[in-house]
């Protein structure tokens, strides 16, 4: 039963992922990306990672993609009028070669890799509690450094926006 659900969700995730790339209109790409996020959230649920699934929907589908849509709607109100310029033969060749190379490296790398199983959470703790415990003990430094990184990004965005106004 679980395996069927997993393959259904994985299929949706793959198909929607491909559709994201092959849409001509950026808004449709964004919508297929949302479908993809839902499928991935479903896979998290199957792995009993309810917290990650909920955060995936709140943060990615609910906040980041709304900002994406906001920007797409502001910048690109109509369907694109002209066809995109056709790529040169050299560009095509380079693109296909690079893609094949990346695919080879990924497949080869993962076929050799041994992924260790994660440790089971201590009994009696839900996964929200276990994540919180890990964040504030073992991973405290990376957690705090991430907040500094985000602060730098915010300051950078404000400086860029303000310098244009003057």
């Amino acid at each position, binding site marked *: 039963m679980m395996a069927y659900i997993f393959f259904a969700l994985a299929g949706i995730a793959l198909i929607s992922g491909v559709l994201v790339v092959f849409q001509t209109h950026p808004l449709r790409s964004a*919508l297929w990306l949302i479908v993809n996020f839902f499928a991935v959230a479903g896979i998290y649920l199957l792995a009993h990672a309810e917290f990650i699934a909920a955060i995936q929907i709140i943060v990615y589908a*609910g906040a980041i993609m709304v*900002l994406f*849509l*906001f920007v797409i*709607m502001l910048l690109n109100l109509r369907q694109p009028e002209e066809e995109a310029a056709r790529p040169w033969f050299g560009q095509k060749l380079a693109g296909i070669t690079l893609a094949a190379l990346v695919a080879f490296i990924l497949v080869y790398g993962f076929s050799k890799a041994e992924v260790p199983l994660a440790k089971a959470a201590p009994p009696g703790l*839900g996964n929200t509690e276990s994540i919180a415990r890990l964040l504030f003990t073992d991973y405290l430094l990376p957690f705090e450094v991430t907040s500094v990184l985000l602060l730098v990004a915010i300051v950078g965005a404000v400086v860029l926006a303000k310098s244009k106004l003057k």
Partner: protein
Amino acid sequence: MNLPVLIALSAIKILIVLVVLLTLVAYTVLMERKVLGFIQLRYGPNRVGPWGLLQPLADLVKLLFKEDFTPPMVNKVLFVMAPIITAVTAFLPFAVIPFAKDMFPPQITIYGQTFDLTAAGLNQGVIADINVGLLYVFAMGSLAVYGAVLGGWASNSKYSLLGGLRLSAQMVSYELALGLSVIGVLMLAGSLSLVKIVEAQKDMWFIVYQPLGFVLFLTAAFAECARTPFDLIECENELVAGYQTEYSSMKWALFMMGEYAHIIVASALITTLFLGGWQGPILPPVVWFMGKTFALVFCFIWVRGTFPRFRFDQLMYLGWKVMLPLALLNIMVTGAVMLLI
């Protein structure tokens, strides 16, 4: 209990809750018209049935038989999808809100067969007690914005698009304040499950320990429901009706149902988080829950009848520069007090 019976019984339970919720939505519309009439010194609907009590039925028949007009230049798929998204995401959060202690007795006998309802928590007064219940509610709330944004974009009309854009900016801004203002409650309850949060308020409602959190959450909930004074997305004098401008008949009705379901769900959530949920003496739990929820629904209508609308820059100022710092302060003070005690 075998799986098909379990599924059937769960479906019956969900159906009961959904039908009650839909009826409440219809009567909230009537309640709003009555209360607004009272505030503005007029009667409100009083022609259909005694005190206008059958008005929702008349409205429903009217909406069903109206012409369902789709303007020619719209994006058809998204134009149809948008009202469905709004209505569905508005109803789904109710799945995790506990409305009573028990809904059914632990065992029932149908046609001589006895079913043990404690199997999947079927007798509990909540459809699904999941351990990330509050996050689930927020996830559904954050998805609600797509209905309006996609509806506004698909309508291919300037007023609709502006309404949709305003809503997306407003929702993203106030979601932060909404999320941060409940952290205090979570610290007190020590759980994200709404059932556990209600149980933690057995002795004292959380509004007593979290007055600032309550005010912030209430304000952010008004903004998330896009109600007055935050209803810039459909302010008539600027945008006709915002993202709903091009909609008619049942598609428009789905938007309206979504709006009123949002009000009920927001009130039910505030009741659960701050006012002790179904807890209360003497009267049965479901009565307490309904009473508290509809007292808050009344507040929503009261505010609509008495407050003017914000300007958009005032809305952003309030969200980012007032409510967000206050919510952070609330978390720090709550944490400090909990460490000291």
